[in-house]
């Protein structure tokens, strides 16, 4: 019995330690954002919300936030339907030997480092601008196209997982009751995939919203995302303004996860 108590205690310490390690930087950012002094040091000389006001006054953050929000929403709105369709094809279509190759291709963007993919896209955009005789780099459509690449692997993976747990007999039952194939998809398949699709939306949004590496080379003047704006700011100043911006970001993502969890239990799909 003593052994099992010791084991339980060790497990408790390990879990607490792991959570501490994950949450410490987040907590640190939140705490630092309300420190009064400009150079971060302990103990704080006082607490203030001045950095939040500063972040609000710096228009590049507000503009970056707006751009990131538009970008993440657009990339999610395009990427999730595409990824869902791809997952359905991977799970259901007769692809033969093509299936493995397609699977690797669709999950590929996860394996390629963001900077490499960003550089490749930059070079491609330069070439493509020449062909279409119009701007692509630094435009919202150009950014959205790039970020759709981020959303697809997540969507494919999450929807595939949902599809594997789906009872095909329910679809057959609907057909048996007189539903045509598209009606079966709309009324039975899609609602049964909902947890996976909702999770895919959430993860796609977060992937796009927080992406820095892939985006770095593709932003243009007046079209900067929030992470890139933060990096730019960091090159000139180090003060808790960034902590304030990061805190707002953390709050947004946290809220999104809580809202999503109300609709589908996230622990069930991830």
């Amino acid at each position, binding site marked *: 019995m003593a052994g099992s108590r010791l084991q339980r205690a060790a497990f408790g310490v390990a879990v607490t330690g792991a959570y501490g390690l994950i949450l410490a930087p987040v907590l640190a950012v939140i705490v630092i954002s309300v420190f009064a002094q400009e150079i971060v040091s302990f103990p704080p000389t006082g607490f203030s919300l001045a950095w939040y006001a500063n972040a609000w006054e710096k228009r590049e953050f507000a503009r970056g936030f707006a751009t990131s929000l538009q970008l993440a929403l657009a990339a999610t709105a395009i990427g999730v339907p595409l990824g869902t369709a791809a997952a359905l094809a991977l799970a259901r279509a007769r692809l033969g030997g093509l299936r493995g190759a397609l699977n690797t291709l669709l999950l590929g963007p996860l394996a390629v480092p963001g900077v490499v993919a960003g550089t490749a896209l930059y070079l491609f955009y330069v070439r493509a601008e020449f062909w279409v005789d119009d701007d692509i780099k630094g435009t919202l459509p150009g950014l959205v196209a790039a970020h759709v690449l981020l959303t697809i692997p997540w969507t494919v993976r999450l929807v595939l997982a949902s599809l594997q747990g789906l009872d095909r*007999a*329910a679809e*057959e039952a*609907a*057909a*048996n*009751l007189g539903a045509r194939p598209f009606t079966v998809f709309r009324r*039975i398949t899609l*609602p*049964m995939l909902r947890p996976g699709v909702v999770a895919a939306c959430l993860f796609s949004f977060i992937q796009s919203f927080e992406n820095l590496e892939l985006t770095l080379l593709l932003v243009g003047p007046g079209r900067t995302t929030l992470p890139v704006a933060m990096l730019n700011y960091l090159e000139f100043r180090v003060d808790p303004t960034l902590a304030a911006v990061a805190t707002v970001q953390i709050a947004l993502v946290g809220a999104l996860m809580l809202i999503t969890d109300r609709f589908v239990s996230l622990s069930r799909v991830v």
Partner: protein
Amino acid sequence: MGTLTLDAISRRYATTIAVERVDLDVAQGEFVALLGPSGCGKTTTLRMVAGFVPPSSGRILIAGRDVTKAPPHGRDTGMVFQSYALFPHMTVGENVAFGLEMRKVARAERDARVREALRLARLDGLADRLPRQLSGGQQQRVALARALVVNPAVFLLDEPLSNLDAKLRAEVRIEIRALQQRLGLTTLFVTHDQEEALTMADRLVVMERGRVRQIGTAEALYERPADAFVAGFIGRCNLLRGTPEAPGQFRTATGALLPRLPLAAPAGSVLALRPERITVATEGTGLPARLMAVTYLGAQTEYHLDLAGTRLLAIAPTPAEGDPRRALAPGDAVLAHWDPAEARLLPAEPGDLPDDAT
């Protein structure tokens, strides 16, 4: 409601034949069970009727209409799945209403029919529940109600009782049969459980390795099996390999000479003898045999006999106390007797006898 006709339907895959030229006529209101060991093609046959598996050849007619090429949604069958296949995101009421909605039945009539179907399936008051809030037996009844509410021409059941516990299974068996008879449903039922098939169906189709071995009533299959496989699959049966010797005699592989039905039998090589048709006595007429084992089972007693090296099983009602047969013990000499008409010569294919496996 209507009839169902399978006209030489086959289903072949690249390397295997799942179903081989199955012919079957199910009359209006008849309950037919497809029975056989797993992998015999019974489920594939049912799925061909539902339209989920296209036949490689042959025709399927429902109510006289050729539906061989029709998609599942155009066949007017009502199917109950082994897993029930309820729509998890819809309430019980919505599940049952789905088929009516697909048939564009007006709202008021739809509601009335759903209410009636739920009442019939004893699900009153559960219309607003989700499937996961119901017990297994209730889910099963939702699946039944959902399939029946649309008045399908043919009612299809794919092992619908296999996920229920034994007690509930016996109840639902009677319930389904009563419902089927009351509504006059033309029904095709798939099962591997012979008791289920015997108690529910008007006629049984015994299948094995994709082929139909015999079609008939429970009594016909039991009393007049077409071959050794059917004899061994329906009920218990002594199946003995050997050679027929005229007149009315059969020599087993071990050399025992047994009386049999004195008919010019087809080229059968297996003697089939039901265990309860053998009487075991201590005196009188019969073939001398030695008792190998006696198993007391309450109402019945099983006698394992050795008849000149040939093993026979006899089953008899347990004798009353005081009867000398009550004292029989292994090693005792007894007399085994049967009416020669009960010993039938049957054709057999390799693998039809349980001992063939060795």
